[in-house]
């Protein structure tokens, strides 16, 4: 994980801030972290106040400082660009949180108990943001997660070179002071799960289970050397030697053009892969991954095989041996607003590879639908009201990827905060499951 600013460097960066009258940075943070406010506080040497602003507005302020694509959010409209370059808001935010750990300052306080109980399903960014807000408001919050620890995608889906688990663990400690209870290794996936929650006296439920089923071109194929991004990243973050042995010295093909694909490709290089090819069916311009991620992947040695559509996998004796590809060219703009890939006739070829990692998107776990008797959309996402984030079930709210589809951590946090406010309204209004 890259080294961050120390508090002195952060203060110097804050000194470049123009303290805009109507700060565009703050308008462009989906999670409402309010950079203009914490930068101004830092500028006036109110360090603890600045930490309070970040942490109160964004329970995962440190993680967001590290991982957020700030160039297209808060820093995008930074007025300092008119002079030179934008204020490095993400780095300031991260420095404040790391400094809070250094000086042992936590501004979070548990609210006066109001006797109400909320169950949060999923300990990812949406669930954590929702829990933190509810706990501050005096709710008794229990968080259920099928994993053995909290963080969701932060803990299992972002490679170590980008985001250290120690950093996550430290940030999660900040939640302890709020009295949020975690129930790990506890999937809420049975048919009776919801009626059990009602029996247990929960007044409302927040569902933020995310999308954990990786899409595969070859569902159910048990080929040695074929991984989904979810399995690969989770294994590569753990001390699982097997994954490292599989990748070391091998030729790897990563399928996909998003941030997760880039994460997989860079992780393979870190694990000692001899060659890493990133296979994407459109061109560089259409890749969903952030520009800086794309550039840094290329700089570190990931070979981009653009305008190539995977057709099938070649195997020998149950082992991956290569990827069957067909060349594409850019066609008309499709529904995603990007130019679509059109196959070039008679251009099929085979890329030999020992390992293939599929990073072509995630979909909901089929069991989620089983467990939650609410309405789902055609894409398999939970159908929620835009206004309240309530599902078709009374008292059951949802946010994050399971409700909005694949999105950023800040979007999940925004949902969690919004849902917490709506749950508060709902419960205070006498509502119950």
């Amino acid at each position, binding site marked *: 994980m890259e080294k961050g600013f120390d508090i002195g460097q952060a*203060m*110097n960066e804050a*000194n470049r801030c*123009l*303290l*805009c*009258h*109507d700060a*565009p940075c703050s308008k462009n943070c989906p999670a409402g972290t309010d950079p203009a406010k914490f930068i101004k506080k830092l500028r006036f040497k109110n360090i603890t106040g600045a930490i309070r602003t970040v942490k109160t507005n964004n329970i995962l302020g440190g993680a967001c400082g590290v991982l957020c694509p700030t160039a297209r959010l808060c820093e995008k409209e930074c*007025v300092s660009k*008119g*002079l030179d370059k934008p204020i490095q808001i993400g780095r300031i935010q991260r420095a404040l949180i790391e400094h809070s750990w250094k000086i042992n300052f936590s501004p979070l306080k548990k609210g006066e108990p109001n006797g109400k109980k909320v169950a949060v399903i999923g300990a990812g960014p949406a669930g954590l943001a929702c829990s933190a807000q509810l706990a501050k408001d005096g709710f008794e919050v229990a968080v259920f997660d099928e994993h053995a620890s909290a963080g969701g995608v932060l803990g299992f889906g972002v490679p170590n070179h980008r985001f250290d688990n120690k950093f996550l663990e430290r940030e999660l400690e900040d939640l302890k002071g709020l009295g949020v209870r975690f129930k790990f290794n506890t999937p809420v996936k049975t048919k009776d799960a919801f009626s059990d929650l009602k029996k247990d006296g929960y007044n409302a439920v927040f569902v933020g289970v995310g999308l954990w089923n990786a899409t595969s071109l070859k569902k159910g194929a048990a080929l040695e050397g074929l991984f989904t991004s979810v399995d690969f990243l989770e294994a590569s973050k753990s001390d699982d030697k097997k994954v490292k042995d599989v990748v070391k010295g091998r030729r790897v093909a990563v399928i996909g053009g998003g941030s997760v694909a880039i994460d997989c490709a860079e992780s393979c290089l870190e694990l000692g892969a001899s060659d890493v090819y990133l296979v994407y069916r459109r061109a560089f311009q259409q890749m969903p991954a952030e520009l800086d991620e794309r550039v840094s992947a290329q700089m570190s040695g990931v070979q981009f095989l653009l305008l190539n559509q995977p057709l099938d996998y070649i195997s020998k004796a149950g082992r991956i041996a290569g990827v069957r590809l067909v060349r594409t060219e850019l066609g008309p703009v499709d529904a995603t607003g990007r130019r679509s890939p059109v196959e070039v006739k008679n251009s099929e070829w085979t890329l030999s590879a020992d390992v293939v990692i599929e990073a072509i998107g995630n979909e909901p776990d089929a069991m989620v639908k089983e467990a939650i008797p609410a309405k789902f959309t055609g894409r398999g996402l939970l159908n929620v009201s835009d206004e309240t984030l309530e599902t078709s079930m009374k008292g059951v709210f949802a946010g994050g990827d399971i409700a909005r589809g694949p999105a950023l951590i800040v979007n999940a946090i925004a949902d969690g905060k919004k849902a917490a406010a709506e749950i508060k309204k709902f419960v205070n209004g006498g509502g119950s499951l």
Partner: protein
Amino acid sequence: MTSNPNLAVDFCGVKFKNPFMLSSSPVSNTGEMVGRSFDAGWGGVAFKTVTVDRAHIIHPSPRMEGYHYGDQRLVGLQNVEQVSDRKLKDNLKDISQLKKRWPDHVVMVSIMGFSNEEWRMLAKASEDSGADLLELNFSCPHMTIEGSGYKVGQAFHLLEQYTAEVRKVVKIPIVAKMTPNITDMNEPALYAKKGGADAIAAINTIRGIASVGLDDLVPSPNVGGKGAISGYSGPAVKPVALRFIAEMAKNKELGLPISGMGGVETWIDALEFILLGATTVQVTTGIIHYGYGIIEDILEGLTDYMVSKGVRDIGELVGKALPNLHETSEFNLKRQGRADYDMTRCIGCGQCYTVCQDAGGQALTWDAAKRRPVMDEDKCLSCMVCNFVCPVEGMIKYKEMPLGWKRKDAPVL
């Protein structure tokens, strides 16, 4: 246009190749250091105040504290530095070696005694060692020994007396170095003149406190758990220094040449001292921050300025700005103006709007859709605060309005 302007000056009959000197401080502590500064281009030195061995000077530890503003280091420097802690004979040897090895550089020796005899002895010994001038230190702001330093500078008769004692025993010019820790520097300067001083040096450091430790509650520098009011210098004191220089330079009764100092770092700072009446200019804090090398840019910048203005001799610039310095009562209040914005250059931070609302004439409104300020010209007070906070250099300028233009009155609540 002149291609090779002359930077040499005559100060009390002593020739300087350029007017720039190290002032008496840690930067002029030893002959070795001063020699290197001469090689770097400095024209002279006020050798760090020598005293009598019986004073037995021991420096507090630590002895300085920086004062920072934002990411700008050392806009000020707080110090409890004492006079030289070296043996008198070592200092005198260094002084005589400096004159031997760098004969075309000026060595002014700063001295401080604690009795008539000591002042005389130090003056004579310095002259005998080859000093070109003497600087009488009447101004150290934090002496650990009573009856010395700035306390002499505040006791005018004592100041005159010591000056006269020195005058009795030496032929070389005497420069009295003044403390700014008084109301009017002209008064002690006149006493120094009466005692026989040939010139005035100013300002010494201003008594101050740079900061207070928030955990130990000790003002800085924290010397073993104790703080003290001590000398404050650096760019932050320059405006105060310029004021004292100008007040003395304008005083016809005084009529002595001035060696100016206080916050000089660049050729522009140095030139401002000269324009307000300093013949030579001394530097310490700038050197403490950046080293002797800043002299290169002082000399080059000043030379280029003189070339661009067609000034042949730097002496022509001494006091050149004084005729424009008036009492505020002499201002022509009929001439009024306002701030004038070049909106093509605005980047939309809105700081002008904030300050105009809270510190100015509420002449600006904020167009939220366009993210730009809009001015009601007739309300502008021409305080120009908006210009001071605007990050786009030169975007906001002062514009004089035609005679008879009337500003709207501020509304009554």
